[in-house]
């Protein structure tokens, strides 16, 4: 629906009301004219009635005058002795008061009808009357009448007395009809002067008989005319008043409503969200509008405040969306946006991407819990941030991966920054989080070469990742800068290894499990073999260092465990190990709580009930899902499977959990075993004491990483009842299997 302007509406309203007033005025005028016509018709009728009554009165008056004249003694006197007739007629009659003032002429006639004496010409009395038996009237109108006025002649016989049969004579008198009529009464309706009788001589018995023959006009009704005039004038005044009032109302509406509303709208438009702009105008002339303006102002203020809040929230959200809530570092999205922005700004400048990764963070997280892990990553991030240049931002990509890029820096500068970061993290006191050992990080650097066709962020990340993998390799530098060879090898290895891992998980027979014996001390008798995952693909053997990063990155731990159990079953089915030779299988934390893995182990136990079966788990499996893991381990132990706690003392294990762990064997980590070779007796005593304590608690203790005889001696001295290491045999494929595979 089309919106109208108030001014148009008001003008339309004024026009409509004005039109209605005009129509009403026209209608009232029409009614007034109708009333006027009705009144005039009534007045004409009243005038005719009035004239009829006046004629009747005049008739009676004339009759009375005629009778008085006829019965007047002096009339008879003149009829019998007319010597002084003229004197009598001209003086005595008017003076005697016998006749009214309207009688203009009198004449006497003898018994034969002859006038006693010719009257003066102006008298207009006839010379002779005849045939008059009684009172009679003759009316002469038109041109025959005196001065054009209708004249009434009245004649009647004069008798000596009532008994007389022959008249003594006749009397006659004349009146001006209209004048006499006018004197009969005060006429309210009839206009006597406008009476027209027509032409000629008329004889009537009574004057009122003339009334119906008269052409009448009603007297102008000044009251009616005044009423009409007043009504029209007042109607005009009313119309002018209505138009004036409406115009005034329209003006006031425009002045006090439209203009203020437009002012409010203008203020709102001009304010552009700034409420203080309302102060530019004075107060509104209408309280309600002032209230509206204040309300709008308040609303606008609130709206502006809300906008600011929203902007802040938006900025906060934007910041939050770009920030990692745990460390306060920027996130991947921020990295991508900043990278794009800086690239657009200074694409020609050199740039180095530095990728940080916390070593063994997963183990820390698994061992000490996420709270500690979070504290560690926060501390690492804070330490790194302190070492960056001003303006350089630290981004957390996820987990323990942190990254920054140094725009305008070369590899040398970046290397220095990386070393400073490494040092800063190494010096941080992580004991405050409950960590007994320092936390280290690995750093991968990728230098962007503007000359290269692809210096995108993803490429740089990939390069830094490859460098990071290199840094993570045991015994290598903790800071590695990417080069193209690394990329070529890594890309080949990575893609090959990934395919191999997925294929092996899908087909466990593809695993080439290597077995390393665990010997019983001190006899050095092979007690059982630890199955270690290897995948041979296209002649290349992928080790756990290749396999586990892929598995962990893709959360394939349980699947890998299940595949390895199946692969062990296949090997045992193929009699890779001699009958009676036990086998130990590493199961991840995810695998021990996985029902399929447990079922597979139980099935293997059922099939290989004559062998020693050992499941090696880390503390993590017991700590993260203790109940499920414990239940599964209980089931396994009930089935005759031994449970070994692997990597005990690798830096993250805790003795306080050992008592509650459903394990049979504790495998001391290489780091613990190497303490036995430490010059310090204190260091050696720790391992020895723990081993003695664990053994005394009823656990079998296994020493890992025994590579020399001297170390073996120390191990035996320390009371270990089993040992494992290159001294006895490296992990390898048993010959029998190799022979079978070679044979076909």
């Amino acid at each position, binding site marked *: 629906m089309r919106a109208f302007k108030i001014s148009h509406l008001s003008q339309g309203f004024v026009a409509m009301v004005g039109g209605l007033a005009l129509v009403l005025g026209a209608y009232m005028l029409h009614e007034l004219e109708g009333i006027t016509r009705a009144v005039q018709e009534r007045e004409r009728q009243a005038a005719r009635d009035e004239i009829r009554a006046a004629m009747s009165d005049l008739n009676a008056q004339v009759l009375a005058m005629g009778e008085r004249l006829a019965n007047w*003694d002096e009339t008879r*006197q003149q009829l019998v002795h007319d010597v*002084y007739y003229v004197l009598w007629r001209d003086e005595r009659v008017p003076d*005697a008061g016998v006749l009214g003032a309207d009688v203009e002429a009198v004449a006497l006639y003898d018994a034969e009808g002859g006038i006693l004496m010719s009257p003066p010409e102006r008298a207009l009395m006839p010379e002779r009357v005849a045939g008059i038996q009684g009172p009679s009237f003759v009316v002469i109108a038109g041109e025959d009448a005196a001065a054009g006025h209708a004249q009434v002649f009245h004649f009647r016989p004069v008798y000596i*007395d009532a008994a007389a049969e022959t008249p003594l004579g006749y009397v006659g008198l004349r009146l001006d009809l209209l004048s006499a009529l006018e004197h009969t009464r005060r006429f309210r309706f009839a206009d006597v002067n406008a009476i027209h009788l027509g032409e000629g001589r008329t004889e009537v018995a009574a004057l009122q008989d003339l009334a119906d023959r008269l052409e009448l006009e009603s007297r102008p009704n000044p009251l009616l005319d005044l009423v009409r005039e007043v009504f029209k004038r007042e109607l005009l005044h009313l119309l002018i008043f209505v138009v004036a009032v409406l115009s005034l109302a329209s003006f006031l509406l425009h002045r006090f409503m439209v203009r203020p509303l437009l002012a409010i709208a203008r203020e709102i438009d001009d304010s552009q969200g700034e409420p203080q702009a309302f102060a530019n105008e004075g107060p509104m002339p209408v309280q309600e509008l002032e209230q509206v303006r204040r309300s709008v102002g308040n609303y606008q203020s609130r709206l502006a405040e809300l906008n600011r809040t929203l902007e802040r929230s938006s900025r906060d959200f934007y910041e939050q969306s770009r920030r990692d809530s745990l460390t306060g570092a920027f996130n991947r999205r921020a990295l991508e946006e900043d990278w794009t922005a800086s690239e657009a700004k200074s694409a020609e400048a050199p740039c180095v991407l530095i990728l940080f990764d916390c070593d063994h963070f997963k183990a820390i997280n698994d061992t000490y819990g996420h709270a500690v892990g979070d504290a560690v990553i926060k501390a690492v991030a804070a330490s790194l941030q302190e070492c960056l240049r001003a303006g350089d931002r630290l981004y957390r990509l996820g987990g323990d991966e942190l990254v920054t890029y140094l725009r305008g820096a070369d590899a040398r500068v970046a290397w220095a920054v990386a070393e400073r970061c490494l040092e800063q993290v190494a010096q941080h006191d992580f004991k405050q989080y409950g960590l007994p050992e320092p936390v280290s990080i690995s750093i991968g650097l990728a230098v962007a070469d503007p000359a290269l066709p692809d210096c995108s962020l993803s490429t740089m990340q990939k390069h830094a990742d490859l460098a990071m993998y290199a840094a993570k390799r045991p015994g290598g530098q903790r800071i590695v800068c990417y080069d193209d060879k690394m990329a070529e090898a890594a890309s080949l290895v990575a893609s090959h290894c990934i395919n191999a891992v997925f294929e092996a998980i899908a087909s466990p027979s593809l695993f080439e499990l290597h077995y390393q014996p665990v010997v019983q001390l001190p006899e050095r008798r092979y007690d059982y073999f630890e199955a270690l995952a290897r995948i041979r693909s296209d002649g290349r053997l992928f080790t756990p260092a290749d396999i586990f990063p892929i598995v962990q990155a893709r959360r394939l731990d349980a699947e890998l465990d299940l595949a390895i159990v199946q692969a062990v079953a296949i090997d045992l089915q193929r009699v890779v190990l001699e009958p009676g030779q036990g086998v130990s299988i590493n199961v991840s934390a995810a695998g021990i709580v996985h029902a399929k893995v447990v079922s597979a182990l139980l099935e293997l136990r059922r099939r290989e009930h004559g062998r020693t079966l050992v499941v090696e788990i880390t503390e993590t499996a017991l700590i993260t899902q203790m109940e499920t893991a414990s239940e599964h381990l209980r089931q396994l132990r009930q089935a005759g499977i031994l449970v070994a706690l692997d990597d005990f003392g690798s830096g993250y294990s805790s003795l306080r959990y050992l008592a509650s762990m459903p394990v049979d064997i504790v495998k001391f980590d290489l780091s613990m075993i190497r303490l036995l070779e430490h010059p310090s007796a204190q260091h050696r005593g720790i391992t020895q004491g723990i081993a003695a304590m664990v053994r005394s608690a009823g656990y079998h203790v296994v020493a890992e990483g025994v590579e020399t005889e001297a170390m073996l001696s120390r191990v035996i001295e320390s009371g270990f009842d089993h040992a494992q290491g290159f001294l006895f045999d490296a992990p390898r494929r048993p010959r029998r299997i190799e022979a079978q595979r070679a044979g076909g």
Partner: protein
Amino acid sequence: MGWERIALLGAALLLAAQRAAGAIVTLEVAEGLPARADYVEGDPGKPALLMLHGFLQTHEFRTIRRLAEGLRDEGYTVLSPTLSLGIPMRKQSLACEAIHTHTLDDAHREIGAWVSWLRARGHQSVVLVGHSSGSMVLLSYLYAHAGSPVIKLVAISLMEGRWELDRAEHERLQASLRAQIAAGDNPLISHDFSFCKPLRATARSLLSYVEWTPDRILNAIDRVPTELVLILGSRDKRLGPDWLRDLREIGRPLDVIEGANHFMDGEFEFELLDRVVNALP
């Protein structure tokens, strides 16, 4: 009271009223000049009374009418004519402003005609009763026409006839009138006469009345052979200052009603009636 008695009483009252009101009789007192009179037949044994009104009046004038009614009640035959004054069947008092052409002789002829009318009706004794100038008219009539059947004149409120003019003025007026008449003119003259101020009359008419001066009236009273009784009111303002004294000096019977005015109005109408009845034979 029974219906019969009421009916009889009503009939008697109607008859008495008719008798009191009398009947209008007409008489052509001159050629072509009929005149009217009220006439009631009374006791035949009593003289008929001819009662004449004052100047320009009719027999309907109240003093004459009431006195006539009283005398009728007394059983007298009463004839109350209206002098025509030259007007046929005159019924109204004639205005002073009217054209007066009548003379005293005309009045004498009409009185004579009515006396004859009475005689013709068998009334051998007629008593003339006049009021005001009617008394002077009857006196002058008797002075000129003494003899049967008039046996007595009762003159009520007889005026001196001087008409408020002194003697010299009166004589100059008469001389003037006579001179005009002698010259063959009979003009209309407006002159004060009696209560008319003025009276418009012909010279002959006016002269016929003004000739009857107080002296002539006193002489006529003194000389008239017929029995005459004068009845006057002691408070009659129209008589003249010495008129009552002059009348007494004549020695004719004079009955003065103390307190009565010229018209014997009010309570004096009964006194007048009694005096007139007493004066009648």
